[in-house]
């Protein structure tokens, strides 16, 4: 398992290339207007590690606003159709933002980080 940390100006991530795909865990508690750009750049860098799909582990994120949501959508786009972006372990107040904006319909959302290819499929 490859584990590295990317320390951006305001956004810390860890990555694991697993059987299920590339798991990128957001270590900051907020993806908001103050950190959306850093988030996007940090994930872009972290996604240079191998693995597909890319699974964004949101378990430590307690707050996201529409700017943060836009950054997650931007990541989906920059990964492209060959590398789907999945979401995992969203806390209730984070899941609420995806639900209200119907963006839950364009992501595969897992209750927990999947551990196998089958679970991630």
């Amino acid at each position: 398992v490859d584990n590295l940390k990317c320390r951006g100006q305001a956004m810390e991530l860890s990555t694991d290339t697993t059987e299920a795909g590339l798991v990128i865990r957001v270590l900051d508690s907020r993806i908001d207007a103050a950190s959306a750009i850093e988030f996007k750049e940090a994930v872009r860098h972290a996604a240079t590690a191998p693995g597909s799909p890319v699974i964004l582990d949101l378990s430590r994120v307690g707050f996201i606003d529409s700017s943060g949501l836009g950054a997650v959508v931007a990541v989906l786009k920059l990964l492209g159709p060959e590398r789907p972006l999945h979401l995992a372990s969203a806390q209730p107040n984070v899941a609420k933002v995806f639900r209200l904006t119907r963006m839950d319909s364009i992501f595969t959302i897992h209750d927990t980080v999947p551990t196998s290819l089958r679970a991630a499929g």
Partner: protein
Amino acid sequence: MVAGGHSTMTAQGTDDPPPRPAGSLTGTARPGPDAWDATETGTLRGLAVHGHLRRQFLSSDRETRAALADLCGQLALVGLDEDDLGTLELILAEALNNVTEHAYGPEGGPVEVSLILLDGAGNETHVGSSGPNGRVLCEVRDYGRPMPPGGPPGPGLPLIAPPDHLPEGGFGWHIIRCLVSELTYERLGNSNRLRMEVDVNQPLSIGSGKSLALGA
């Protein structure tokens, strides 16, 4: 980065007993003289004591984050659950992001956020009261550019049709309108005033631990 001296929080929880707050706030939200009892706890607990609070800062993404932390810290003290706290933080964030981005832009300017706890009938709460299922009134004031004619955009999402239509913005007012029970915008002189009311799940707890009632 804004100098700390430009950020103030009126009736904030602090270990230093501040001056009597009566008259230190503007508008209708003003505590009676009995709202302040420094002898009991030696602590002014802001929102949980008075039922209202005001926080001022200069617009920026970072100052908005700091203000939200203060405001939500105070809201947590009045008995709101995680769902209500998340809702209030979200609508305040969206409104404040809008001020930072559109009312002021890069030059920035002053922002005032007021929180006022209302009882189930929509009246301002008093010390010692704990009405069932109250409301929180959030007022955001700025002195920047006015909103376009007609005020805040109505509900509705941008077109979501992957892969060609994946919007990265345009969600903010939709989120606010989904979560508030009342939304009003007024241009008052050279200022914008946005008022958002949120129904909360939990009874609000004002002046907890006290039987003190405000004189009418």
